[in-house]
């Protein structure tokens, strides 16, 4: 929910002059048919919390308790934290949880889910159309649409996935069979095709990516020969990322097989076949290595006994009854893909694909392939279905444990539940609060929660946008993809530290540390020796680089291709950190053009257009926030002046409180209770994929109170979110979101 400022910022002016902001604090009553004030009934789940402070259906008059107001009431001006107590606990009425629209998987979720489901990290969603976003995020159910193009892309991706899964797994069922990787099908940068193989015509290597089904010993066989020339025979190495596993002398001039036994950990592995002694002379000829394929055989005696969950083909269709084996395969795969138990009727429908294939004279594996494709193209996979309440359930129900597991895993992993979370759903224990919290903490610690950092922080703090920034390279010759990537990484690393540590999230705005690599340190002008790897640096109080608003990513994304945009910076601070949406400019002055008067500083030019009182009402609030950051240029580099003009980064915060420079501004911002409220709103919006509106005010208030109690740790915020009714329950859908 954005705090919508009614009509114009003239309201603002009133507020900053001391108005109590009743327009914001007291949302208009919701239409009674949309949000009837009903008590929560949760037949299956834990009893609903009595802490819900207010019913949204009550009238505005009922709500005018001073302490209800997150902005002006209950919170002493100038204190560092808003009042931690939940002001609205009356115990009389509960607020209703939202009813989010079903969410289709967005691009990131699709890729992550396929990775965790199959073990294949294919990145196929790269070719999908851009996801729609609203309310600041690209995971909002009501906003995400499905275009015909997307369905087409889904179908094509699903076929690729299933083909690769079958190619990988077929050999695993029969451990004696080898996986054969053709050299000419690998992504090799040197050489060319020859003799059904690949000719490495100078020193280089062919990568053979593979996914080891288990940890253990494997036999690798390389079929190769050499173009012999010069004094030495062809030399060939088998390597992984870090070391040579075996070296071979290839004396033959026709295909031979070269074998080695190696040890592999379960999971993705990169093997390389390298040509190491290239030779060429006009007299003696050209020495080359020709590789046909690399095959891998599992040497474990008990192969097949201990299948990983990601193995899809789990039995041998050629030796077992195909219908029995296919049932095993479909049941295992559909349960994981659909993130819930499947009925035998659902499996029966899938088994029909074996008959369809048989009628065409194709074998059972073809039928299984069709069934697997259907599982992935089904809305049960592509959408996160939470079924509507039955009439008996009334208007609110608790989520079942599988639905809850999916909400939790897409919140933190942007992916399907992992095995442990599934298990907690399967035995129902996830509905117990302590189990839910234990799972949450386990998942925060798991590296897969990096997805939350990339997705949530990337969108909330705009660092994801730095990849798409259009910049004028004449103006910023230093700009390139490496710098953009470094900026995005910096914000991600800083945010990640807040996720995993016990720091107050409010410190995000003046953190005494950041992460840099050599490129970024140079860009920032940080003294010291840095390398390509990332270094955590401590920043003293005088450092201008404290806090996420001084990160290159935020500063670049909020600039124009050739210069900074203080208005844009100010507007985004209001929207992203304070959840205040300034109204658009009055009709006729859209995107108010900025004067080009080379004899005036940028700030002076802005002051000119602020002469108009209509403009001034908003810009007196917005612009100073941006001007405070004017010492950072359009790509976030520090500058002492703006093309010869002195920079004045002082101003009034919200038209009232003076700050001298951006450091003081960040201090004021950090103390503003609206910030914690806004973080709560943004996080809940992301967590449930639903645009928070006035109706959800009571959920925000309750979560924010717990967030405050813990000292604004991200962990406390998440705990409060996943414990909230908004997260664990759903309400009957009405026609509007």
């Amino acid at each position, binding site marked *: 929910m954005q705090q919508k400022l009614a009509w114009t910022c003239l309201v603002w002016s009133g507020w900053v002059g001391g108005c109590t902001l009743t327009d914001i604090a007291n949302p208009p009553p919701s239409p009674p048919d949309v949000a009837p004030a009903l008590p929560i009934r949760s037949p299956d789940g834990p009893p609903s919390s009595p802490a819900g402070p207010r019913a949204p259906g009550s009238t505005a008059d009922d709500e005018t308790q001073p302490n209800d107001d997150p902005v002006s009431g209950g919170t002493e001006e100038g204190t560092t934290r808003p009042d931690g107590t939940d002001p609205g606990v009356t115990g009389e009425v509960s607020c209703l949880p939202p*009813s989010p*629209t*079903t969410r289709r998987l967005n691009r990131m979720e699709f890729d992550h889910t396929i990775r965790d489901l199959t073990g294949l990290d294919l990145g196929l969603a790269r070719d999908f*159309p*851009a996801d*729609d*976003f*609203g309310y*600041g995020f690209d995971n909002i*159910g*009501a*906003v995400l*649409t*499905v*275009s*015909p*193009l997307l*369905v*087409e892309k889904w*179908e*094509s991706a699903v076929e690729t996935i299933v083909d690769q899964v079958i190619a990988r797994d077929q050999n695993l069922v029969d451990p004696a069979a080898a996986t054969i990787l053709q050299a*000419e099908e690998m992504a090799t*940068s040197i050489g060319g095709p020859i003799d059904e193989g690949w000719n490495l015509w100078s020193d280089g290597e062919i990568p053979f990516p593979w996914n080891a089904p288990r940890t253990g010993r494997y036999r690798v066989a390389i079929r190769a020969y050499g173009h012999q020339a010069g004094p030495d025979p062809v030399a060939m190495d088998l390597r992984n990322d870090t070391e040579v596993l075996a070296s071979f002398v290839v004396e033959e001039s026709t295909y031979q097989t070269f074998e080695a036994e190696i040890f592999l950990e379960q999971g993705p592995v990169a093997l390389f076949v390298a040509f190491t002694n290239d030779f060429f002379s006009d007299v003696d000829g050209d020495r080359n290595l020709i590789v046909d394929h690399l095959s891998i055989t599992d040497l474990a005696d008990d192969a097949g006994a201990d299948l990983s969950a990601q193995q899809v083909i789990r039995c041998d269709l050629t030796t077992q009854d195909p219908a029995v084996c296919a049932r095993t395969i479909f049941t295992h795969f559909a349960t994981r893909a659909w993130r819930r138990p499947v009925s035998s009727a659902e499996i029966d429908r899938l088994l029909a694909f074996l008959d*369809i*294939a048989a009628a*065409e004279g194709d074998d059972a594996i*073809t039928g299984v392939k*069709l069934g697997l*494709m259907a599982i992935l*193209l*089904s*809305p049960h996979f592509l*959408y996160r*279905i939470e*079924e*509507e309440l039955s009439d008996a359930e009334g208007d609110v129900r608790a989520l079942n444990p599988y639905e809850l597991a999916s909400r939790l895993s897409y919140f933190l992993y942007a992916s399907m539940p992992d095995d442990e979370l599934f298990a907690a759903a399967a035995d129902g224990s996830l509905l117990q609060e302590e189990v839910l919290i234990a799972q949450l903490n386990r998942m925060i610690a798991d590296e897969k929660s990096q997805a939350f950092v990339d997705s949530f922080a990337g*969108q909330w703090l*705009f660092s*994801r*946008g730095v*990849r*798409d920034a*259009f910049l004028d*390279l*004449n103006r910023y010759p230093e700009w390139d993809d490496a710098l953009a990537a470094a900026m995005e990484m910096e914000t991600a690393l800083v945010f990640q530290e807040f996720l995993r540590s016990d720091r107050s999230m409010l410190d995000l705005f003046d953190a005494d540390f950041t992460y840099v690599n050599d490129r970024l340190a140079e860009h920032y002008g940080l003294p010291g020796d840095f390398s390509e790897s990332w270094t955590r640096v401590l920043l003293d109080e005088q450092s201008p680089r404290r806090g996420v608003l001084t990160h290159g990513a935020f500063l670049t994304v909020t600039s*124009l291709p*050739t210069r900074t945009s203080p208005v844009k910076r100010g507007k*985004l601070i209001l929207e992203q950190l304070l959840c205040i949406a300034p109204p*658009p400019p009055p*009709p006729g002055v*859209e995107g108010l*053009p900025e*004067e*080009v008067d080379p004899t005036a500083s940028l700030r002076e030019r802005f002051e000119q257009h602020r002469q108009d009182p209509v403009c001034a009402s908003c810009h007196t609030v917005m612009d100073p926030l941006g001007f405070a950051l004017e010492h950072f240029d359009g790509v976030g580099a520090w500058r002492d002046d703006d093309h010869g003009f002195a920079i004045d980064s002082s101003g009034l915060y919200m038209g009232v409180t003076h700050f001298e420079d951006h450091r003081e501004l960040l201090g004021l911002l950090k103390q503003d209770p609206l910030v914690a409220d806004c973080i709560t709103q943004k996080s809940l919006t992301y967590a449930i994929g639903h*645009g928070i509106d006035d109706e959800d005010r009571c959920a925000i208030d309750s979560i924010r109170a717990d967030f405050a109690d813990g000292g604004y740790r991200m962990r406390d915020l998440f705990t409060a979110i996943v414990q909230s009714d908004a997260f664990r329950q759903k309400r*009957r*859908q*009405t*026609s509007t*979101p």
Partner: protein
Amino acid sequence: MSTNKTLSLHRRNFLRGAGATLALPFLESLRPAKTYAQSASAPTRMFAFYVPNGIHMADFTPTQAGSTYALPAILSSLAPHRADVLVLSGLDNEPATAQGDGNGDHARGTSAFLTCAHPVKTEGANLFVGPSMDQLVADHYSGQTRLRSLELGCEGGGSTGGCDSGYSCAYTRNISWRTASTPMAKEISPRSVFDRLFAGMSPDETLAQTRRRRLYRQSILDYVREDATTLQARVGLRDRQKLEEYLTGVRELEIRIDALTEAPGNQCRATEAPTETPADFERYVQSMLDLVVLAFRCDLTRVATFMLGNGSSNRSFGFLGVSGSHHELSHHQGDPAKHAALRTINTWEVAQFAYLIERLKQVEETDGSNLLDHSLLLFSSEVADGNSHGHANLPVLLAGHGGGEIVSGRHVQFSGNVPLANLYLSMMQTIGVDVDRFGDDGTNRLNALFA
């Protein structure tokens, strides 16, 4: 399916591209690719070329009407093609105006660009504007080509923030709308477009194999359609609508799969696929336009739209020697330096349109005419002047002869609030679409276009 081996689409060729940027060898032959058995003459193709942020009108609109007008600076690249082009002035897209909705002219102008309908102002939960004219043409040709239509562009979408004054990004990123609430997402990768054009066209596949493959795909779609339909009964009101979008997509895909065997392949030659998106913007644009020519020539589709950028794009045109970003420059406030920059950008934009005209002219049809003779190509922007954001007197070019009905080579001035929708009605009727009203205000054909 032809077994012509020249259609060799080895994935490896382009996966392996070794950093080669897109060369365009895939138009190996400029001879006609297909003969049209059912009708004596070639069908009329329709294409729309959208440029963001308006046009510097002073250097776009000819001062004289008729056929002897002097070419203004921005249109200079059309000199070789003036006999094939109509410059149309005085057309208004009234549905794009505010009508009480406040700011957001870029979003409104872009979403009304081909729909001539007034969009519902929303952040995204209840999109509504109207079907676009290209989609009505696509309906007309439905089932006759592998693809109903092709939506292309050179700008995906930023992944942060909003788009325009409270309008969903769907309104600034799409000009093609299948229905009032379903935008047709566009492709921005040449490789991806190429894949899509030729997907499933394997030269080595026998007819029996093609049929079996089609049957399998249909059986999967049958299965998932049943899933979605069953689910609709068990989910909430809004979820039902979401599943309806899915079902629409499934139906579209079925039609497409049908077309694979109903309209079997042709002699089209495509020897090498694009490798990656060119870093050079002009090459990028032209590679997308080449794909349009390829698709038209091979009759893989008859309808295509292209967005040079998204509505209010802030692309930097440094490669033209222009400093500043497009949207920012378009707020020129009468500054001559910004006018000059806009003139440079607009001139280049029209030159890309001229490039397409040139390529289409090079393709012969079986009857000796060329592809341009059987095309209607529209060029315009979401606003007229970028500073005032007006939707009246839009910059409009119409190239091609629409099968001979259009009298080209003129500047036609309209006066008295003539709706842009009437131009679209005229184009659709020329193509043979049975329609007599379009959008919010299209009621009449523009007789001035015809002989």
